[in-house]
């Protein structure tokens, strides 16, 4: 019986599976198979009877890894003649100010494959120089002899007039390789950002196409959808055509999962905190998931909408070391999975995970259900071999110091997405998931004045859960660059076009009209400004703009002309949501599985250890306590109280 949907999230170490059957969430993991991610997926799916799945929703790292490791297609770029190097020069800045050995990200298009097309369109879409077809054919001949696997086409002002790009597409068809047009990938102004986004799409296209094709073939008739960076899932076929939209597929699933669980449990404003092995992702959601159009991946701008996730190099594997000036640094260098922390058996450098073990906070019995041993006894001798570590009077003191430093690094990351963007962290709940976060969340919340920490059920598989919860979502935009006053007819025309496209594509995705919703926005600014505010498209949107500008920046200029830069439409297709059932209240007090000394605030404190599986709705635990489970461990420090709510979330608050 085809009756359930499966979320499959491929991670570096594990591939997570989530199913909801009969209102109950089930999770399990398989070891990932990085060379062929589909092997782990098929192995996991084999646990179900043939044809049982109604749909598979997939969070994939194929695009991300290909980009980071520069393993994408051999790509050519066709651009307006005279502007072939825009993609190299970028915004003419360097990444680090004081590093004379500063580098640039490796380019995705090799020298000699950036080719100038003879044509020129102007800002209003008018054609100054018609496309020179003869010249273009010469360029295509050059591409032909160079083993090019994919082509990006990004001409100046293609957002205002895409005719030349479309003509080039027709001329390229005989080559039989994928072509990405900037007027389709990202029809917005700013040539460098648009070209970069288009080139990334072309670079990832062949690989992503092959991978999804193979996976779909093995899934046979079971529909496959892929998570995008914007938090919505789309059909595999559409994802293969727009791989740039799937770059942060996995982390996006995490935020979507966190957001839905938080909404269902009654927490409208959350800061997501996902601490993994090498890095920590944080993101802020208030009534909705925040999306940005100005992301960078590996130093390259990506101008399509992505969930606004900030990543900092602080994780369980982050290495502690003393710098030559006498300060204790933790990260961004990481021991990764190999050699990993000392206690995994191979590492020699002290990591955050080791520090947690030293302090007695990370318990071998819970660590992945005891499947992976923690070699506690390896740590002390290894740490003794580190010269710099000798100045600490005890190993516990050093461990606590490393934790303090990494907590401070994460605190700065949260400040960046909250305080620096005008939000007060005290109005939010810290929503903690990922493997390593639970031991740090209370301290982090304390440092930021965040009143509450929530650790959902299955914190280690929230990304996979997010896949099941995600709606389908597609974003459309068009740059207009016109005066906002009197923009009605142009705006209407552009919107009609975006709506036609959106409705057709969502119907292709298999949604009925009644399941499809759309929302329109405009990007506005005062003439002369160079950044825009995105405002919902309402009748008096110009007035709204002045008000939002006043609120955000402390002033407005109602007399200044307002420019309408972009119009945006988001189409979403509603997917069936599982009901999060409330759990009945438990009577009685929870029973600890043991009690043992744990180092907290530089003191050995007798601490009760609980197994999360034994905790039920209504249970309350006073710190100090540690709550262990399959994929995560949560520390309840002294002065904190942890209660279990009706959705079986752990809720930590200062008591």
């Amino acid at each position, binding site marked *: 019986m085809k009756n359930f949907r499966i979320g499959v999230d491929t991670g570096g170490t594990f591939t997570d599976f989530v199913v909801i059957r009969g209102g109950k969430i089930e999770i399990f993991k398989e070891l990932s198979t990085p060379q062929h991610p589909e092997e782990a997926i098929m192995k996991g799916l084999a646990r179900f009877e043939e044809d049982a799945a109604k749909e598979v929703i997939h969070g994939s790292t194929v695009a991300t890894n290909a980009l980071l490791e520069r393993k994408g297609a051999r790509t050519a770029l066709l651009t307006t003649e*005279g*502007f*072939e*190097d*825009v993609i*190299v*020069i970028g*915004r*003419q*800045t*360097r990444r680090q*100010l*004081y*590093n*004379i*050995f*500063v*580098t*640039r990200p490796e380019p995705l298009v090799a020298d000699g494959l950036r080719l100038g097309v003879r044509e020129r369109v*102007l*800002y209003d879409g008018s054609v100054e120089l018609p496309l020179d077809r003869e010249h273009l054919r010469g360029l295509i001949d050059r591409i032909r002899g160079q083993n090019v696997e994919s082509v990006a086409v990004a001409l*100046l*002002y293609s957002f205002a007039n895409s005719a030349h790009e479309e003509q080039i597409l027709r001329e390229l068809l005989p080559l039989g390789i994928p072509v990405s047009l900037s007027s389709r990938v990202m029809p917005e*102004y*700013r*040539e*460098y950002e648009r070209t970069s986004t288009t080139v990334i799409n072309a670079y990832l296209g062949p690989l992503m196409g092959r991978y999804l094709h193979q996976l779909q073939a093995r899934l046979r008739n079971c529909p496959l959808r892929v998570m995008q960076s914007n938090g919505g899932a789309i059909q595999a076929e559409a994802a293969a055509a727009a791989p740039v939209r799937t770059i942060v597929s996995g982390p996006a699933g995490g935020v979507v999962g966190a957001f839905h669980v938080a909404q269902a449990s009654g927490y409208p404003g959350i800061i997501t905190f996902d601490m993994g092995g090498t890095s920590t992702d944080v993101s802020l959601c208030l009534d909705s998931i925040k999306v940005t159009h100005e992301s960078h991946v590996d130093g390259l701008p990506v101008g399509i909408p992505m969930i606004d996730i900030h990543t900092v190099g602080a994780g369980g594997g982050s290495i502690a070391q*003393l*710098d*030559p*000036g*006498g*300060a*204790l640094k*933790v990260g961004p260098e990481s021991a990764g999975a190999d050699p990993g922390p000392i206690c995994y058996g191979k590492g020699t450098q002290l990591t955050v995970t080791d520090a947690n073990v030293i302090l007695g906070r990370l318990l071998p019995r819970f660590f992945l259900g005891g499947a992976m041993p923690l070699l506690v006894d390896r740590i002390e001798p290894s740490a003794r071999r580190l010269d710099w570590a000798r*100045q600490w009077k005890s190993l516990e003191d050093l461990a606590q*110091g*490393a934790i*303090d*430093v990494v907590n*401070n*690094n994460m605190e*700065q990351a949260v*400040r*960046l997405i909250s*305080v*620096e*963007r005008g939000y007060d962290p005290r109005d939010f709940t810290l929503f903690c998931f990922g493997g390593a976060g639970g031991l740090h969340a209370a301290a982090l919340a304390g440092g930021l004045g965040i009143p509450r920490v929530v650790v959902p059920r299955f914190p280690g598989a929230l990304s996979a859960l997010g896949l099941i919860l995600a709606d389908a979502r597609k974003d459309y935009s068009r740059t207009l*660059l016109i005066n906002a006053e009197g923009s009605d007819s142009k705006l209407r025309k552009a919107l009609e076009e975006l709506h036609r496209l959106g409705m057709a594509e969502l119907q292709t995705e298999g949604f009925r009209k009644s399941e499809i919703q759309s929302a329109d926005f405009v990007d506005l600014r*005062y003439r*002369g*400004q*160079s*950044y825009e505010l995105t405002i919902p498209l309402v009748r008096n949107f110009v007035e709204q703009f002045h008000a939002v500008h006043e609120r*955000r*920046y*402390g*002033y407005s*200029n109602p007399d*200044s002309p307002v420019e309408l830069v972009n119009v945006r439409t988001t189409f979403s297709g509603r997917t069936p949501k599982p009901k999060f059932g409330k759990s009945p209240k438990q009577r009685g007090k929870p029973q600890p599985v043991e009690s043992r000394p744990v180092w907290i605030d530089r003191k050995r404190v007798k601490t009760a250890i609980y197994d999360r599986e034994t905790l039920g709705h209504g249970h309350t635990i006073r710190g100090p306590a540690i709550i262990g489970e399959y994929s995560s461990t949560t520390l309840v420090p002294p002065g904190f109280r942890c209660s279990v709510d009706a959705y079986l979330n752990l809720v930590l608050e200062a008591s």
Partner: protein
Amino acid sequence: MKTNPVRLEIFKSLFHAIAEEMGATLKRTAFSPNIKERRDYSCAIFDHHGDMLAQGDHMPVHLGSMPLSVKAAIENRNIGPGDIVILNDPYKGGTHLPDITLVSGVFSRKKLIFYVACRAHHSDVGGMSPGSMPLAEEIYQEGLRIPPIKLMSGGKLNTDVWDLILSNVRTPQEREGDLAAMLGANRTGERRLMEVVEKYGWNEVSRYVTEILNYSERMTRHAISVIPDGTYEAEDFLDNDGITDKPIAIRVRIQIKGDQAVIDFSRSDPQVQGSVNAVYAITASVVFYVFRTLVSLLIPSNAGGMRPLQIIAPEGTIVNARPPAAVCGGNVETSQRIVDVLYKCLAAAMPGRIPAASQGTMNNFTFGGVDPRTQKAVAYYETVSGGMGARPTMDGLSGVHTHMTNSMNTPVEALEHAYPVRMLRYSLRPESGGQGKCRGGDGVIRELRFLTKAQITVLSDRRKFPPYGLNGGEPGQRGMNVLIRKDGRREELPSKFSTAVEAGDILSIQSPGGGGWGRK
């Protein structure tokens, strides 16, 4: 009591984060593209003596000059709670007139415990030409000169000062928005520092204020001690001052003794008639920048890092101008040449560690005119990147800003929309980087046609003397400024010029390539 390495790390990152947060406030709220898009600003925090504790990763050219603006504010005005001092006078803590600085105190129980300051490049502060980057001969022509005075007293805006400033600039509304953003940045710094004091207590905080200064000092001393002891000399030249065509020499002698350095510019040329005079603040910034790049780790930019460095720059020279010399080019051009001289000198001491010369100019380009599409006056300013000098182990980058600036370009699609110009070419300049074992980066070609008559000004350098190579590497190509008149006449123009152009005329700025490193 021994320094706690954990607290040291935490405070180090805290103070830096506060300076960054001030910058984020400024960028988020500023009105003009110059601040928002080009990021031409800096924010920093200071201890109660006015010693800099941390600066955000903003403009290197402000590194040594931010402390001098705070010093000038303290010396000239008694700063109490709610007071904010404004200044731009290059001879009293400023750099060049467009850079306006706001300084305020942070008070705890009426005791002054910190200063905070922010500085931003305003796109117009009056003077003889739009954009306030003219080819001037006196500072009075360059714009409104603001000595350290109070913009706010006891929390109240001094509207007399405010009105006076706004009456002397071409785009008052934009200035108003930018100044308001700067006030917000200082308030952010103040608030955050108070939170830190509340959390850790003043005793602990003040202890680590001292420790952080010592930390940067240690790291800088360590970097200097690696340089072999001795006295090293170098010279390099600016093409000219834009008024006469005479080259201007900058000469430095660096004496390294153990873990300290004396940087002596005494033999440099006297100040000049044109606007490339650097005030002392610029020279101090450059010295600080260069030595900071020798420290391989990220350290806080603070007064501790300056302690091992003694600068000798006699008044009246090109590196320490006296009023009323014009100075706007000192900040953007001379600063780059002082970098080149210092690195050349250090290369003599450590041949294997120093990169060849980068483009050594910012190629400042300003134009003003009336947009025929709107009949409104427009003014525009940009800088153009070039080639980076080759490093001993790797090629220089192409088409990138180097050393004292890191400001962004304006997208072609934004530029043509807002101004009456047509960009014909924006590309790398092939073969302009110097050959060598490692190649210098290529410069760029930025070529545009004017669609209306306009007044244009270019303030550039390295059109006569190319960026040097090192260890047998070839020099980079010198830059070129070419004007192609509507009728096809082609004129190569000097480093610095101001001229009228007609609709149809084409300006081609070709920036220098970086020098090569090592014999090929």
